[in-house]
């Protein structure tokens, strides 16, 4: 129990999160002269999907025509929802920023006599960002999950409050500007590194009136051995078999649309699927340990030869992590629609750079880096203008799981999670959407939400867990509502009852609200503008 007095602090800029977006934001804000506090749920260096991954950033040299061509190629895959200006911005910023890590990250050769900058290994990347941030003067508070935002009487954000779990103490931070960089929501699928990615930032932002965008594009999966989510590099040349030894008809990865995923998902629903990696590139067989050692451990401990033996695989849901949904960005400084609140990385919408398709593999990391840097700089400038306003009274904005509408008790959150997962990362619900199914999932998720909203209340560590479940329920509600409202198929969003893409719906779709979820197109349909 938290008996000690709460920790209270103030800063010019408060960053919530501890992955790559949060660190780049903190570094930029500190370099701009702001006093910066960063609170992470976990440990900056190991927490979030950046640390366990090894993001390859969108990396295009500033040579004549090359960037334009890269933008056009990716724009064509965005189904009309990305913005070329933003794409150009993230290519340029990433190109200039990554080499700045040279003193902290052990960059090595690119095989052609130069330095390899674009891809960085997760644990070394996050260790480097931690050191860089500390050197820049950022105060890092590990194991300080944020639970809710604080508001001034005028509705602008005044800071945040949370729980310091190693000290078992509540904390409150007042700040002139707050950056949400809490990552995406993977619904506890077991996806590598994603346990803490429960969509907390989306819930906190929505509670102060922020709007989300692109939530219907949350349909992404990683293929891994069934018993351990790893990175996916080894599995690209795989053949797949059922337990009888019959080869399955699985279209190759990166063959467009979701043919590969859908074939695997259908097969997995029917029974175990075994992968056979004997066709993998020879250089991979020889070099995997040096490139991605963590991909080997799950096999060695089980005495499986991953390039010779067949082994069961599974698709791990990624939710909004490699989907594109998140907090709507309304300005060039990564402002949200709420005053003093900024969003970056996977907790912000990535439609601006990836549209309706996953930006995993290039844009997402470039976005996390760039949006972090932009949000950090803008937040610092804003805080300098407005000041901290640290001694005015504030209102705690948290609702569900913190301040129940009715009699308080501790609900058993384990009951709701399977319902939330079925609605979001369940193969059938995500890959074969239809109005009927979505309506059923909407009602089921709403019932889970109601239980927590009406009764949920807990203390200390249990409060952190309860808020995580509330956030996952909220994210599920928004995903299902947006998928219902987008009455067509577009990119990752596939409706079997609306198989075609409707030109009139070429607009981003906003969703928000807690007890009453609403949706509306970001801008009127194309023909209405023309009319």
């Amino acid at each position, binding site marked *: 129990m938290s008996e000690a007095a709460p920790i209270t602090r103030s800063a010019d800029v408060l960053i919530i999160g501890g992955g790559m977006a949060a660190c780049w934001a903190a570094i930029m804000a500190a370099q701009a002269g702001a006093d910066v506090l960063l609170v992470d749920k*976990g*440990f900056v260096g*190991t927490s*979030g999907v950046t*640390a*366990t991954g*090894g993001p*390859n950033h969108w990396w295009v040299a500033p040579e004549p025509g090359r960037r334009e061509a890269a933008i056009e190629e990716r724009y064509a895959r965005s189904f009309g929802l990305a913005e070329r200006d933003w794409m150009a911005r993230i290519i340029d910023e990433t190109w200039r920023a990554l080499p700045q890590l040279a003193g902290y990250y*052990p960059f*090595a*050769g*690119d*095989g052609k006599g130069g330095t*390899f900058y*674009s*891809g960085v*290994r997760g*644990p*070394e990347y996050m260790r480097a960002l931690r050191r860089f941030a500390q050197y820049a003067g950022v105060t890092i508070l*590990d*194991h300080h999950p944020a639970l809710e935002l604080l508001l001034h009487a005028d509705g602008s954000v005044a800071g945040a409050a949370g729980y310091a*779990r*190693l000290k078992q103490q509540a904390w409150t931070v007042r700040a002139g500007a707050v950056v949400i960089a809490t990552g995406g929501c993977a619904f506890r699928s*077991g996806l*590598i*590194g*994603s*346990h*803490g990615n429960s969509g907390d930032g989306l819930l906190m932002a929505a509670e102060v009136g922020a709007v989300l965008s692109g939530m219907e594009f949350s349909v992404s999966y990683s293929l891994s051995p069934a*018993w*351990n*989510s790893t990175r996916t*590099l*080894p*599995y*690209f*040349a795989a*053949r797949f078999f059922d337990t009888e030894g019959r080869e399955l008809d699985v279209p*190759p*990865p*990166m*063959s467009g649309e979701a043919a590969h995923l859908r074939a695997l998902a259908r097969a997995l629903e029917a029974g175990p699927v075994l992968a056979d990696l004997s*066709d*993998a*590139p020879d*250089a*991979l067989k020889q*070099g995997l*340990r*040096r*490139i991605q*050692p963590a991909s*080997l*451990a*799950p096999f*060695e*401990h*089980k*005495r499986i030869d991953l390039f010779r033996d067949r082994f069961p695989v599974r698709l791990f849901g990624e939710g909004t992590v490699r989907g594109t949904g998140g907090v709507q960005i309304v300005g060039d400084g990564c402002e949200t629609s709420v005053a003093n609140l900024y969003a970056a990385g996977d907790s912000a919408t990535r439609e601006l750079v990836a549209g309706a398709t996953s930006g995993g593999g290039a844009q997402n990391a470039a976005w996390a880096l760039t949006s972090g840097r932009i949000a950090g700089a803008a937040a610092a400038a804003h805080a300098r203008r407005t000041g901290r306003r640290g001694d005015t009274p504030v209102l705690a904005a948290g609702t569900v799981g913190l301040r129940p509408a009715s009699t308080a008790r501790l609900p058993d959150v384990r009951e709701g999670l399977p319902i939330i997962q079925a609605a979001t990362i369940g193969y059938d619900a995500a890959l074969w959407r239809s109005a009927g199914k979505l309506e059923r999932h909407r009602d089921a998720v709403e019932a889970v939400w109601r239980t927590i909203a009406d009764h949920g209340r807990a203390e200390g*560590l249990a409060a952190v867990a309860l808020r995580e479940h509330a956030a996952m329920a909220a994210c599920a509600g928004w995903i299902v509502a947006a998928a219902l409202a987008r009455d067509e198929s577009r990119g990752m969003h596939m409706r079997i009852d609306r198989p075609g893409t409707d030109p009139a719906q070429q607009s981003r779709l906003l969703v928000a609200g807690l007890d009453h979820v609403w949706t509306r197109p970001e801008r009127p349909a194309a023909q209405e503008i023309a009319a």
Partner: protein
Amino acid sequence: MIAQIFEERCTGCQACVVACPTHVFDAGTDGVPLIARLDQCQTCFMCELYCPADALYVAPEQEGAPSLSAVEALAMGQVGRLRHDYGWDRDAPPEAPHLQDFWQLGPLLREGAEIAARRYAARWADTDIA
């Protein structure tokens, strides 16, 4: 899931308590941390990477019983293996940095996808699937 802290190796430095991103450990009274919240372990191996004494064993199974006991893992040389593979247990010589092959990631991934695409095209070439 985290399976074991080898008490005879553990120096009680508490690095794992702080580095575990999901708050699995509590500081123990005798210096050896306690595995206090096993249900929160995400099998990310980060504690192994951050333990300077190679005193932790994470079994790769995210659920259910480990196929290799901690004692077997130790005997097989698996404890500390990951930290060694990452190169976090030593400095790298300048001519052979730890990440010298890392650039191959993208090309190998693409090569894998191309192999699958070629094989798939060949497989269906002589079948009329229209």
